[in-house]
């Protein structure tokens, strides 16, 4: 599985049966896959081992049909038994080395981290990816202090393996998380607790796409009639790069004024023709 581009996923979904009473786990999770989820984890902290095994077997079958990696939370033995693609472990679960020894070198291991220190350790240990959170307070894991988007920014700057921002992420706050540097999101209740998990997944992927589509390196644009190179990914970053954030500006792209609220969603394409004009206030 590792040979395949498992790391291409952008949206990671986790089960939470208590959020969809009356609806079958497999049905709800299938909706998330229809919506485009790229990685699926079974998390069942309260059920018996038999329950977890039964669910794992069903979800393994489902995810295989959709060609999506399947991860089991905590239960290394069940992961092996149902031929899951890997396990996900928390800071208080089975030690990483032990999990790796049991699973062998080819299975994925994800680690929950709540600080940059833990993230760096997981990376050194050889984790395939890490969870970064909880970004916001969450009912899925009550009582756990939120790490805020500040940690997301740190992870984006210093962690080289894939990281997934998790914890209280909804469509309403996803922009902030993406802005902080996350390119992979995980939502639990926002997805499986919704009436239409597939639609919510699509909306999340839409949002992520707005950020991950950015050109990674600098592009040449026309700025106020002159050629200029910029590594800014969107209009807001360009204004910041130019040191003009503190001024009241009017921004125009290819002849049309861009509303102030759309600056950060306005991707800077190569050869974009941009005018940035300071608002004239005299009268």
């Amino acid at each position, binding site marked *: 599985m590792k040979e395949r581009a498992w790391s291409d996923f952008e949206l990671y979904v986790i089960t939470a049966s208590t959020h969809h009473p009356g609806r079958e786990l497999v049905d709800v999770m299938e909706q998330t896959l229809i919506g485009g989820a790229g990685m699926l984890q079974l998390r069942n902290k309260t059920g018996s081992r038999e329950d977890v095994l039964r669910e794992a077997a069903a979800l393994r079958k489902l995810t295989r049909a959709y060609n999506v990696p399947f991860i089991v939370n905590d239960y290394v033995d069940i992961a092996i038994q149902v031929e899951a693609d890997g396990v996900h472990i928390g800071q208080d679960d089975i030690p990483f080395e032990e999990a790796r020894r049991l699973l062998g070198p080819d299975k994925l291991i994800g680690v929950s981290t709540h600080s940059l220190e833990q993230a760096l350790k997981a990376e050194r240990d050889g984790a395939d990816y890490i969870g970064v959170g909880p970004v916001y307070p969450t009912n899925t894991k009550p009582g756990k202090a939120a790490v805020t988007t500040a940690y997301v920014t740190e992870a984006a700057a210093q962690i080289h393996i894939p990281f997934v921002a998790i914890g209280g992420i*909804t*469509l*309403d706050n996803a922009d902030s998380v993406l802005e902080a540097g996350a390119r992979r999101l995980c939502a639990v209740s926002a997805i499986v607790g919704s009436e239409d998990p597939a*639609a919510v997944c699509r*909306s999340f992927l*839409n*949002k992520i796409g707005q950020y991950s589509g950015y050109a990674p390196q600098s592009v040449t644009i026309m700025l106020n009639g002159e050629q200029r190179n910029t590594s800014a990914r969107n209009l807001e970053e360009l204004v910041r790069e130019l040191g003009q954030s*503190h*001024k*009241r*500006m*009017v921004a*125009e792209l290819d*002849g*049309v*004024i*861009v*509303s*102030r*609220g*759309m600056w950060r969603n306005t991707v800077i394409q190569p050869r974009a023709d941009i*005018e940035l*004009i*300071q*608002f*004239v*206030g*005299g*009268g």
Partner: protein
Amino acid sequence: MHEQTEDIWADRYDRQIRFAPIGAKGQARLANMRALIVGCGALGASLAQHLTRAGVGKVRIADRDFVEPSNLQRQMLFHEADALAVLPKAVAAAEKLRAINGSIEIEALVTDVNSMTITAAMENVDLVLDGTDNAATRLLLSEACFARNIPFIYGGVAGAEGMSAMLIPGQTACLRCLIGDEASVEEELNCDTAGVLSAAVDFIASLQAVEAIKWLSGNRNAVRKSWVVADLWRFSVREFTLPGCTPGCHICGGLADENIVQLNLPRSESIARSDVLAHREERKHRLQAGTDETPPAHAWSQTLAVALCGRDSVQVTLPRTFQLEQWQVVFERLGYEIKANRYLLKIGLPDGERLVLFPDGRVLVQGIIDADKALRICVRYLTDPLEMQAEEEART
């Protein structure tokens, strides 16, 4: 006599009526229209003059300031005598405008247009022209216009540059969507930081006035839906398309014509239309009730001190009114230098600052930019006259 008078002025609008898009019909429409011009400085005076000559039925001008010698270089309605008499700009302008066209109604408001006074200022007007000198008032006007479904015609000028755009509810974005409403941003280019050429003022005022005339004469399809940026010195004139209403904006959203909205937002961002409308309604009620409070900058209850950037003055609004004659007596007795007319009282303080008192409770503290210091000066000099008299008597 009356007959004869009418005959003399029969051709007043002849050349405008001969302009086909206006015609007799457009001219008649203009006579029934009402425009508000906020700020009667350089842009405002020029705008007022255009609308008055064109025969707009009712022209209301609102301004918080008075005429000074430094205005005469560009503020076309004012004379040296106005500066010498320290006349409020709205009053001095109205006098000239009435002399230009006695057949229309000119209304002068000597007031600061803010969230408390905007309701009265905007009562029964068909559009608002921008002659202000700051973004905060413009944002307030834009919002109030969108709440009332009438156009706001922005104009700004500094140096030899200027900008103008007509913002129309249901058709274009509001000003806040275009420039943001962050309070802490650096002061925009204005006449005090960049100077200003009179010719540039008239250029921008013309851009504004012509759109107003189009709208008010019934030529609504002819209005220019763009943001124009002009630099008369280097000479460049650029025109940018205005975006449509922003879905979800509590000011301009929810009014959007479906065809104009091009933004393809994910579901979560397209706030339900009813929510937006509800918010707008609520906002409108607050604005109309005059209860949309701007939080006071200082704890002195209900007192608002606003530094007029680059103008070396602070405007303090006190929760009281002034009997100017009474205060004149007080300060004369103190031996301070006084300039007075029926609209304001200007007092030269011993330390060099000047206080300008308006009957509505406003005080311009000149020679100072620190709002706190301005407040202290007001507390010191503008406590009750009887107390001051008592203090004075005790001293002598």
